């Protein structure tokens, strides 16, 4: 039987990194995710698995250390919160351009600017639409519990290596600070050099006789070459959109109204749904687990049979744009949000729902 322990979401990221054979973590402290590196430093994995944990001089340095580690085919990651992720965005674009795998954790806080240390979901657009420059996408996965924080590290690396693409674990201050029961699984050892060669034959691990040099770069000055590369990326993103969409549903089977919400908001919407159901209103929740790729087909399917949908987000309305694109006019789409680190209660969401749908 798997062992069950009580962990904060942030601690779960750190423990999972150690137990899933991550080779390196490079970070810089920022609330509300500082427990990630604090836990790693306390656990001293360099003495057990050989994992490197390093506090860099800045976020810019830490993402470039990730870039370097990823070139060598290593499982490397960083974590930060909103303003720190902005600083890393150049590096993330380069990593996407160099087609390298890595995991970046964003435990979102309120912005813009230095903003507040309280929870928020206002980096949706930054993570899903770009953040850095150029035509690229990160795979974005959104945990809603401490268990997800634990599980998504391993899943994130699986996706990152499968597609040679950066993966963002888009959490928020609530999921980072929330302590819950976490089931931990058997330890996955770090990859050996031979295993790295097998899984990452593109890595710069030293050129043996008998094969060409591996070159990792995001620079290509010839227009046709660059365009061919952009098209190659498009084919990759198409494959990701086709194969990797993940979502969960709560009482959508007979629902007449749907909440669309990710991360902590999806759980608050479940509680709001329970309240509305007690009044005889058939509500349900669709939770996108992958934000990129977005569950657009499922949203379109549900939109054809419900009276309305509402996107509930801790921001001014970011994901709602993608919901509207997926719904494509099939039903009315509403939005309710809180900002600045304030978090809605289930009652508040139920009230906003009644108002939008002209009920009572």
């Amino acid at each position, binding site marked *: 039987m798997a062992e*069950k*322990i*009580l962990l904060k979401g942030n601690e779960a990221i750190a423990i999972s990194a150690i137990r899933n054979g991550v080779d390196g973590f490079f970070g810089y402290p920022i*609330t*509300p995710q500082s427990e990630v590196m604090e836990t790693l430093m306390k656990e001293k994995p360099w003495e057990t698995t050989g994992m490197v944990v390093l506090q860099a001089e800045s976020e810019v340095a830490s993402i470039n250390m990730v870039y370097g580690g990823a070139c060598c085919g290593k499982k490397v990651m960083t974590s930060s919160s909103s303003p720190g992720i902005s600083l890393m965005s150049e590096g993330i674009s380069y990593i996407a351009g160099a087609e390298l795998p890595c995991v970046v954790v964003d435990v979102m806080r309120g912005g813009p600017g230095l903003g507040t*240390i*309280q929870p928020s979901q206002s980096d949706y657009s930054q993570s899903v639409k770009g953040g850095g420059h150029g035509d690229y996408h990160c795979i974005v996965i959104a945990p809603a519990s401490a268990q997800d924080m634990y599980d998504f590290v391993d899943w994130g690396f699986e996706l990152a290596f499968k597609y040679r693409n950066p993966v963002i674990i888009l959490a928020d*201050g*609530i999921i980072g*600070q*929330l*302590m*819950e*029961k976490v089931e931990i699984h058997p330890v996955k050892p770090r990859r050996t050099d031979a295993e790295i060669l097998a899984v990452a034959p593109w890595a710069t691990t030293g050129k043996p006789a008998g094969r060409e040099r591996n070159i990792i770069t995001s620079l290509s000055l010839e227009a046709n070459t660059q365009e061919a590369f952009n098209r190659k990326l498009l084919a990759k993103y198409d494959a990701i959109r086709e194969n990797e969409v993940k979502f969960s549903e709560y009482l959508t089977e007979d629902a007449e109204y749907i909440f669309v919400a990710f991360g*902590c908001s999806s*759980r*608050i919407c*479940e*509680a*709001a749904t*329970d309240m509305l159901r007690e009044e005889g209103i058939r509500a349900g929740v669709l939770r996108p687990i992958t934000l990129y790729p977005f569950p657009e087909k499922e949203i379109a399917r549900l939109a054809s049979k419900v009276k309305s949908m509402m996107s509930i987000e801790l921001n001014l309305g970011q994901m709602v744009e993608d919901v509207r694109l997926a719904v494509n006019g099939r039903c009315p789409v509403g939005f309710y949000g809180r900002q600045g*680190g304030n*978090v*809605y*209660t*289930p*009652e508040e969401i139920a009230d906003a729902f009644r108002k939008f749908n002209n009920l009572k």
Partner: protein
Amino acid sequence: MKEEIIIAGFGGQGVLSMGKILAYSAIMQDLEVTWMPSYGPEMRGGTANVCVIVSDRKISSPIITRYDTAVILNQQSLDKFEQNVKPGGLLVYDPSGITRVPERKDITVCSIDAIEVAAELGNSKVYNMAVLGAYLKMRPFLNMENVVKGLEKSIPARYADMIQKNREAIEKGMEKVKIISESAL
């Protein structure tokens, strides 16, 4: 069963760790838990609070604004949270931190002189466990055996000698809790 609890007091009173030990004990009894601290720009000497939910079913929202139980360790927290206890609910407070007694008649009100318990046991650090004991006496949904396991899981190995002291404080808290007024409901 589902119990939604807020524990509130000054930073340094052991509010967060009391919540953690309660949560870990509930896990040992195979219950579901969430533990959500207030993590604003708090500082030592400022107020601190944590919401703990214990349930035999999966917990949806960890964000709650109405409580089955409020454990109150200072006046600011009493002023802020007394009104948010659900009718028929429970309020446990430490009189040494309070200048105005709770006024609600539709909830059960109890007091625990946890400073006295800690003084009797000769260790101020077990203060919060006396409060936990008082709470668990009023809401006896955990076996002592699981509470001890919860303590063992929460207390770092180098303080293992504190487990027995904490257990004594919990048991003393259970003995010393006083019912001030029963809910009129």
